[in-house]
């Protein structure tokens, strides 16, 4: 019994690290631009398909597939923001909603056209390697994916905090008027933000491509999970995304062994409700006050 729970917790933490990366992307986009990316889950699925295509069809090594997904999604996010997104930053929320929902539907449609509705999975010997530590059995692919996700999350924090461009993103998030007044190129900063946010989602997708079969319709579940994490952790808070991701990962895994695998989302929603009722600002309220 103890073994079962211990393994569930470890697996929950590992998937939680991936969730944290997805939620970090959503939070950066919201934190800097006050825009909600309703197509975030679709970006995870794009990453999964990129991972699948690079690894299974082109035979690239896993790390290279992840790198391709990261770079491609960064470029796509940057260009999308420059071409379309920046026009919508000042628009009312319901207009933004239509843009991002439309984007989500378009991406899912494209996936269905290109890859078909059937699940696509990566078959690889590496998928079955495990580490054993005492009673724990840890899937190697899962561990590597989680480690990579954490490295990216912490690397991103450090970059945002210590680089001049990261500080400019912080500045634009906090005081857009002040940022404009000193000549920060807001269109560029917003495009970088979108690129980074979408690259987080896409990279997370590529990291889990060997673990889960991909189909076009996984996206809405990813989006919802990311939203729950962001609300539980605290809007626009980066530590909130990390802690929220790990928390949701573990609680889902425990729910699966204690109640039933289908109780996963139910437990996440309960957690969400509790947080909304008890601490509506989330576990970590962001330092940033908005603009």
């Amino acid at each position, binding site marked *: 019994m103890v073994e079962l729970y211990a393994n569930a917790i470890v697996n929950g933490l590992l998937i939680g690290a991936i969730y944290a990366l997805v939620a970090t992307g959503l939070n950066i986009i919201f934190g800097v631009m006050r825009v909600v990316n309703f197509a975030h889950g679709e970006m995870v699925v794009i990453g999964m398909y990129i991972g699948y295509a690079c690894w299974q069809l082109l035979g690239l090594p896993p790390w290279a597939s992840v790198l391709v997904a990261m770079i491609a999604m960064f470029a796509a996010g940057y260009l999308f923001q420059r071409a379309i997104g920046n026009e919508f930053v000042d628009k009312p929320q319901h207009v933004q909603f239509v843009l991002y929902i439309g984007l989500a539907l378009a991406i899912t449609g494209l996936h269905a056209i290109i890859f078909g509705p059937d699940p696509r999975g990566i078959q690889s010997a590496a998928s079955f390697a495990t580490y054993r530590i005492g009673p724990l059995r840890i899937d190697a692919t899962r561990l590597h994916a989680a480690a990579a996700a954490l490295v990216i999350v912490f690397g991103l924090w450090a970059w945002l905090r210590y680089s001049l461009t990261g500080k*400019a993103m912080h500045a634009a998030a906090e005081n857009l008027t002040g940022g404009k007044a*000193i000549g920060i190129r807001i269109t560029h900063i917003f495009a970088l933000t979108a690129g980074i946010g979408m690259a987080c989602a896409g990279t997370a997708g590529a990291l889990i491509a060997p673990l889960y079969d991909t189909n076009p319709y996984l996206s809405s579940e990813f989006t919802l999970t990311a939203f729950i994490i962001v609300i539980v952790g605290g809007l626009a808070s980066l530590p909130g995304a990390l802690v929220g991701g790990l928390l949701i990962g573990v609680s889902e895994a425990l729910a699966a062994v204690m109640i039933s695998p289908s109780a996963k989302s139910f437990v996440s929603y309960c957690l969400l409700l509790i947080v909304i009722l008890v601490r509506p600002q989330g576990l970590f309220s962001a330092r940033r006050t908005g603009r």
Partner: protein
Amino acid sequence: MTRLLDIQDLTAGYNGVTVLSGVSLHVDEGETVAVVGANGAGKTTLIRAIAGMVHATSGIVTFSGTNITNQPTDRICEAGIAQSPEGRQLFVSLSIEDNLRLGAILKRARARTDDNLARVFDLFPKLKARRHQLAGTLSGGEQQMVAIGRALMAEPKVVMLDEPSLGLAPVMVDLMFDTIADLNKQGMSILLVEQNTGESLALSSRGYVLENGSVVLQGTGEALLQDDRVRKAYLGL
């Protein structure tokens, strides 16, 4: 003297409401020029229109001989116009030093960030001691120093100051105007927008009086200080 900033017949406003109508003024190299006027006269709108933050519906803004009307703000800053905006607009959850360093994010000055930082700290020694303190924790006067310092970090050819004395304690007001006079002595060209008519005209070579979005009087600082209308309406004499 070289004409640095030249504004001809500038009209600008918000969402179809005209605020500035036909404003003409100029700043020559090395000058301090004051624009005085009551609250709501359009002083901030003037600065924002020059900086490309408010759309100019007609008129021409020329800077160093180049037409910069309605250019993107970052390009106008890159050309050498910096500002300490109304309300200071600091990044309150960043440190003083980070606020200043962000002022040098422009290509024109980034390579010399450390030299300019040292220069700003010479001008405002108080900021140096507190460089790691969050900008939001400073007094109004110190925040104004950061806002001016941040503008200077861009190595501007002209700096626009929007009501630097607003909301400051009397001692700080004097210090602020002394600093502005010093800056000008070091060669900086300054467009000073103020409600504090007496002090700002006293340190400016020329001045303009703005009323309801139009220039109603102009002249040397001294002449305006002697002008009956100015004395009555703005100095309470």
